[in-house]
């Protein structure tokens, strides 16, 4: 076996993945960072059994799902919804471009929130995180065909939401011009 990555290396490489997955799994915003930390703590404890040849992201996803579930259960008294977008300071100077990206991201976020968890996480893992379908299937504990079916359905929902958003924007634009 080759080099076994340190926790720091694993953290640097997969922090964003875990953070995003945790958010899409419905952990309240205030608890996301803590949940991410917990995921890596569990990973740290399980490092000895970590086979670096297997998919670390699958392992992380499995841990994240359990951590998120626990966090959700603990927060069951408050309404836990899928995360709104985070407001990350953007270094780009182009404000208009930034706003455009923000609007598009908001559309994706809303579409994801409207999906059931199976489709949502299939879409997130496959199209947002770029995992292969077999890897997604392994993460979710489903077979490859189911993963494809969910992905197709999720994309279709996403397209419809985007189309509605674009139609609204065009309508707004037309109304603005006709005034």
């Amino acid at each position, binding site marked *: 076996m080759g080099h076994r990555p340190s926790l720091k290396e694993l953290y640097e490489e997969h922090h964003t993945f875990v953070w995003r997955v945790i958010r899409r799994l419905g952990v309240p915003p*205030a608890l996301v960072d*803590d949940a991410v930390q917990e995921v890596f703590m569990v990973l740290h404890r399980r490092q000895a059994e970590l086979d670096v040849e297997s998919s670390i992201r699958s392992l992380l996803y499995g841990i994240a799902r359990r951590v998120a579930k626990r966090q959700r259960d603990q927060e069951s008294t408050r309404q836990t919804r899928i995360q709104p977008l985070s407001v990350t300071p953007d270094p780009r100077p182009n404000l208009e471009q930034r706003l455009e990206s923000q609007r598009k991201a908001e559309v994706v976020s809303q579409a994801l929130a409207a999906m059931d968890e199976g489709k949502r996480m299939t879409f997130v893992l496959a199209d947002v995180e770029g995992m292969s379908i077999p890897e997604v299937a392994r993460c979710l504990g489903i077979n490859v065909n189911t993963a494809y079916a969910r992905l197709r359905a999720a994309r279709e929902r996403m*397209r419809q939401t985007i189309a509605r958003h674009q139609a609204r924007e065009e309508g707004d634009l037309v109304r603005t011009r006709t005034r």
Partner: protein
Amino acid sequence: MSEPERDDELDPVLQDYIAAFVEIDRPSDASRRQTWTALDEATRPAVRWRVVGAIGAIAAIAAAMLLMPRTWSVGPARRAEPDLTEAPYESESRPDTGELRTEGTRLPNTGELRSEGERRLGTGKLRIDGAPGIERVRIDGESRPGTEERRTDESRPNTDELRTDEETRLGTDEHPTGGAPGRALQVVASAPAISGPSASLGPKPARPSIPEPSRPDTEAETTLPRSTLAEQTAALRAIQQALIEGRPAEALALVEDSRHRFPMGIFIDEITVAQAQAFCDLGRSVQAREAVNALSARNPRSPLLTRARRICPSSP
């Protein structure tokens, strides 16, 4: 399989939106750094625990090796006896050697054998009288609740009867992570049973027994847990008092002090909960949660976890 199909399905518009989403929905650098700092801190003690555990294991082996010759020396006379831990106090005649080993010292069978070591059992004292072929063990001492006078020539199948309250607590499952005294006790008590030639006769291998060791003069071993128990209790009370009186910073200092003094203390879980509370009171919710996580990692079945998780419910 059909990866190309997947790529085909991802049209440019969708790609554009997803790219925007990936760009916007990401953790800030500050968040990343802060989480790593907390994670790094949280995982470092775990390393120390492993080191302590390894040292403990080495100490256990060393203790077992030290005790082995002693156990073997009395082994032949005790082979048929039900309770190994009582061996040195037995009053049976030992026709084979007529000798009794106490405190690792070979005591000649002169009839004048008397161990000066008075062993505290509960509140009683244990004196060993030796006579040729007949050694008698007597427990002298004021009779107090839970501490009966016992003659060890009586059959005593269950050594637990001699446990004091504190000692029993040390061995219970309530503190599975164990404290230093508890572990020390296990080492002392279990080593002869493991290493002895008739180890299979050990009555309760699963449950750590108190020091009913193979040497009478165990004053240090029996008093140490008592004294540290009192100290640990006092330390925990001081921490809790500081919290009650709204002095979380002081409580934290006391937590550190307590951990330094009793790195494997029996109230380690309680102290961790107190630490989480102190952090929370100080507005350091990430560290509070980290403390709770540490407790969860160390003792996932701790009954304190439910309460601990409510300490900082809305930590940022």
